[in-house]
């Protein structure tokens, strides 16, 4: 499909400086700017300048380290895999919760949020004991020759656990608000269930799925607590970047730590920007951006 993206008429937004219905526009803008600066921009600037404090060379040296590179690749790779899995599973789960509604779906609905509420260390320890070669699930898998704990597979598993609610909670409300008539219209037009899912529902859910993916991914890249137990933390095998940062800090190697941090920051920012850009290009977002209900 090669439709040209229509120009947004921008009906919804007042030009800056035009008095809005809601008062205190200047005040609210000022406060927002203040918080964003104090809480986001300044720390990020500090993080970005820190590695250069002792010169560009030290910084490059820190990144040239094979152990650091491996940790970064591992973190991003596992987060990517986990976010993809979360997107699939989350879509399925949201579907079941909204459309299938099996007995006990309310309980299931509440359980989805557990990873939000549980201290991540508890989750990590639980997962480790389950999937360790001696654990309930780990033991049978071990006999099949599949090792989960202390491998990248285990890391991905932990990241799926913490990332899943992000996808479910972004997709579910959108699915709930989708008018039933859309599916019915497709049905009267002769579409089979698979075609309705693929051509009507998925495109309508795509922006929410992209957001959920982005959130799960961002969380996965930075996740620490739930991962370090199951990861086993063997350098060059299952050592994640956030852990390496902690290790570098304990070695008083601030430049090394913040160099890894900076790379993570840039990569994560790039990923999120890419997802936002992609989202805006999705046909389903066009309707939203152009305002009004179809």
């Amino acid at each position: 499909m090669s439709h040209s993206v229509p120009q947004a008429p921008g009906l919804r937004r007042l030009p800056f400086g035009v008095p809005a219905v809601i008062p205190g526009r200047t005040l609210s803008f000022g406060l927002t700017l203040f918080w964003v600066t104090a809480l986001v921009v300044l720390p990020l600037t500090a993080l970005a300048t820190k590695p250069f404090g002792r010169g560009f060379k030290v910084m490059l040296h820190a990144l040239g380290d094979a152990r650091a590179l491996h940790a970064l690749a591992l973190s991003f790779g596992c987060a990517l895999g986990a976010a993809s899995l979360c997107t699939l599973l989350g879509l399925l789960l949201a579907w079941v919760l909204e459309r299938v509604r099996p007995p006990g779906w309310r309980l299931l609905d509440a359980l989805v949020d557990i990873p939000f509420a549980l201290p991540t260390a508890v989750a990590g320890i639980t997962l480790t004991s389950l999937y360790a070669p001696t654990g309930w699930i780990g033991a049978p898998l071990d006999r099949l020759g599949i090792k989960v704990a202390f491998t990248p597979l285990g890391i991905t598993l932990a990241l799926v656990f913490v990332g899943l609610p992000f996808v479910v909670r972004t997709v579910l409300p959108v699915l709930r608000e989708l008018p039933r008539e859309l599916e019915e219209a497709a049905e009267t037009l002769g579409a089979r269930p698979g075609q309705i899912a693929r051509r009507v529902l998925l495109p309508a859910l795509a922006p929410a799925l992209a957001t959920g993916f982005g959130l799960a991914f961002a969380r996965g890249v930075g996740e620490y607590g739930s991962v370090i137990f199951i990861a086993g933390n063997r350098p060059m095998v299952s050592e994640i970047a956030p852990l390496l940062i902690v290790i570098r800090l304990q070695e008083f190697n601030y430049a090394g730590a913040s160099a890894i941090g900076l790379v993570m920051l840039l990569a994560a920012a790039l990923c999120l920007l890419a997802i936002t850009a992609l989202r805006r290009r999705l046909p389903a977002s066009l309707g939203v951006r152009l305002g009004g209900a179809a």
Partner: protein
Amino acid sequence: MGVDLRNISCLFGRTPAVRDISLRVSNGEFLALVGPSGAGKTTLLRIIAGLEPNYTGQLSIGARDVTRVPARERNIGFVFQNYALFRHMTVAENVAFGLRVRPRKRRPARAAIAARVSELLELVQVGPLAQRYPTQLSGGQRQRVALARALATEPELLLLDEPFGALDPLVRKEIRTWLRRLHERLGLTSILVTHDQSEALEVADRIAVLRDGSLEQVDTPDALEDRPSSLFVHQFLGETVGFDASAGTDGAILSLNGPWNGTPARFPEPATAPGPGPGRRHLSLRPWEIGLEPTDAQGAARVTGMGRAGPFLRYAVRAPDGSHAVEVLRPSSLPPLPEDGGCALDLRLARVFAQPGADDTGA
């Protein structure tokens, strides 16, 4: 294609939404489905479309029994009240949807689909908007696109659920006459749900009046107006003025009851009475069907107020004891009645109904 409903009922939980409806719509007919809110119009339409699987009875479209056939195999076009356009698709993609989802064997070639889409968009007069998204259209344009999408698969039965509900009166009037012409041009069979009686009267060949899930009456607009089967139908289709009256042994109306008792009046011939024999009756008329004749007779009704109403003069007519008043419309071409003068009522155009709950022993 014709539709044949036989003993269709539908329950939601314990409450019946549609009760034992039997109805035939012949090929090429335009049927309007009217009734108060909650009467079951949408439910009946969804049953015909196959979107409401839990019903009892039998349903045929054309010669085919479709009672257990799913919606996607019924080959109907359905236009939803809220349009239900796919908003991630352009107008052209929306219209093409029904053709693109066909199994490969029956799917037209790409170029054929494109040609059909532009033909349809021309037909509904939104040709230049093909590349827009639904949110960039006005309500009337969305309505037309929804119609084009429903027509793309060449359905022989078109179902429309209050399709003009969200449009302003002028656009409504324009689009419904246009829809009627389209119906004839394409040789469709159409069923239109509406809560606007004037719309139904104007556009439909026959009107089915629903009440509480039951079919009250199905007839042509003229027959519904002239011979409503119940007071409900007459009242539902327009403004009415009612009088209680008594009938004699031959069924002829003798006098008005209540505050209008003794008012000089002319009554319809006994032939229109609901049944022979004495008893209480209810006379129902449109406000412009009541004739007023100036008189000095005792107990005459009194004209107490007057105003213009389009081509009519609107009179307030009071019962002799002043306790009750009705509004009567009289063509302004007739000589005006003197204010506060007496007048006799000409009720010969009244529809006569047995009075609900009245015993037949007379008043």
